[in-house]
């Protein structure tokens, strides 16, 4: 495989459905990093991921994975990809021992030792049917399978949704371990922004099929801020600086996307740091501009 800078490169990805359009999506997942793919339910995260995995056919646009075309070089690429879905895709009648045998004969680089190591680590029984697994166990099983064939790229669709914080933390630690190898990358879709705040290097926000923001998490967090002020002070703010504002009985909280410039422009104003969740919330309400 040739050298590549981005594990995933998406340009102009478009997919039209009746009532929903994934519109001209373009972003990159840099090699050796973890990208959080954020958006509310129905924003188009799963459509994008399914298109990357070539489960869904795009209407237009190009997707390169490891610098290769995701359709033309599909089989070559898929040797080095692992996908984790929100639901267990393995048959509930199988057990881990049988799954090991199945996947060992599919992936050239499959390591039963690694897989069994993860089973032990996650305390997953090898002879118990998956039907009897809890949601957390099923997710751990998927992750154990995803990490056992030396994949260079993990693509996860809402993998931590519905899990309790303890299990989520455990899984996030595993992802950080996976990223110790600088050839490894992760694209992780989630609407639990706190998880991404912990581990993501870069973040892509989408809403209603449109890309809102993409870039390094630290840059995004540094650029954004919330001006907390009275309603009168809010009336004096330049509305072009504001993404959207929450108006309450006590005053206004306005999200700005150029914090450094706003700090100069509105000297004396209190500009608080924004979390990824707040950024998502204010962007989602950008069309209303003012909300409560």
């Amino acid at each position, binding site marked *: 495989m040739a050298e590549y800078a981005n594990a995933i490169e998406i340009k102009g990805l478009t997919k039209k459905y009746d009532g929903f359009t994934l519109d001209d999506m373009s972003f990159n997942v840099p090699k050796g990093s973890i990208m959080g793919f954020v958006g509310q339910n129905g924003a188009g995260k799963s459509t994008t991921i399914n298109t990357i995995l070539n489960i869904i056919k795009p209407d237009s646009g190009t997707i390169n994975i490891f610098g290769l075309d995701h359709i033309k070089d599909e089989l070559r690429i898929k040797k080095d990809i692992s996908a984790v879905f929100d639901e267990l895709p393995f048959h509930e009648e199988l057990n881990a021992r049988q799954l090991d045998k199945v996947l060992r004969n*599919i992936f050239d680089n499959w390591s039963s030792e690694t897989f069994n190591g993860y089973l032990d680590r996650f305390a997953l029984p090898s002879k118990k049917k998956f039907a009897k697994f809890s949601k957390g166990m099923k997710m751990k099983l998927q992750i154990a399978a995803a990490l056992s064939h030396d994949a260079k790229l993990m693509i996860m669709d809402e993998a931590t949704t519905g899990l309790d914080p303890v299990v989520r933390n455990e899984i996030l630690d595993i992802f950080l371990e996976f990223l110790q190898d600088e050839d490894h990358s992760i694209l992780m879709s989630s609407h639990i922004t706190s998880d991404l705040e912990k581990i993501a290097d870069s973040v892509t926000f989408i809403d209603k099929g449109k890309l809102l923001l993409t870039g390094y998490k630290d840059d995004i967090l540094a650029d954004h801020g919330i001006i907390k002020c009275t309603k009168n002070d809010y009336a004096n703010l330049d509305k072009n600086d504001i993404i959207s504002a929450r108006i309450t009985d006590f005053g206004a909280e306005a999200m700005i996307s150029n914090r450094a410039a706003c700090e100069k422009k509105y000297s004396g104003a209190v500009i608080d740091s924004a979390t990824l969740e707040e950024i998502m919330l204010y962007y989602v309400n950008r069309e209303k501009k003012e909300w409560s």
Partner: protein
Amino acid sequence: MKGIMFKEFFLSKKFTVFGLATYLIAFTMFVLVKLSILYGNIGKLPPKTVATAESVLYYVMPLSLALVLYVSVMTNNTKHDITSKWNRYAYTLPLSEKQIIGASYLYNAVGFCAVTIINFIVYFIALALYGDKFDYRMLFIIMGIGALCFVVLGLNKLFMLIFKGNTSRSRTVLCCIYMGLYFGIGLGVGQYITHFFESRGYELDDQDNWPPEASAEFEKHIAKIVETVKDNLWWSVPIILITLGVIFFTLSVKALKRREN
């Protein structure tokens, strides 16, 4: 490909064991009933009843029970692939569509061979029990019906793929096809029989029955057709079934390649 074969095997394991146990029980009953016909109480029943029991045993056991189990096991595997979302996961694996479909056809072929072997063993046991001579038409019938099941399973798989796992729609369309074939063939055969009798000048009696000599002539006519096919055109049956198998395989690969829109 081997991995998919293992998956099919693990999925069918429980059902197969259950099926074999059922088969063994049914087979034991078959032997016991035959022994009772020879030496016990069943033999004392009216001759027509005994003859019916014997023909059911003789034909149903070697020809259909194992096939029913075989079709059930394979259909069950296809159903599991859909309910478990495996089909979505399969797209993320480094396997071509040909390999995915090929593996399930290969497993299906293994099932077909196993069932054919079982059917022949049971047929030979039946021959020994009844003291009959080997009829090579049974060779043709056992393999032909098995191959037909193989092809029907291919058609089921194809429709599951065409409708992307929408089992109820796939089932509805398949039911329509099978019922269409069933009634179409029934209607066609009925028309053919009527035409056959009328062209030979037979007429229906007062109770709307054809005269016995007409039925006898028709039976002879059918026997002649069977003989002709058996002696001269027997090769056309495997060719038709293989062609259908290849068509369904190719269409299944195409259906799997057609990504969700």
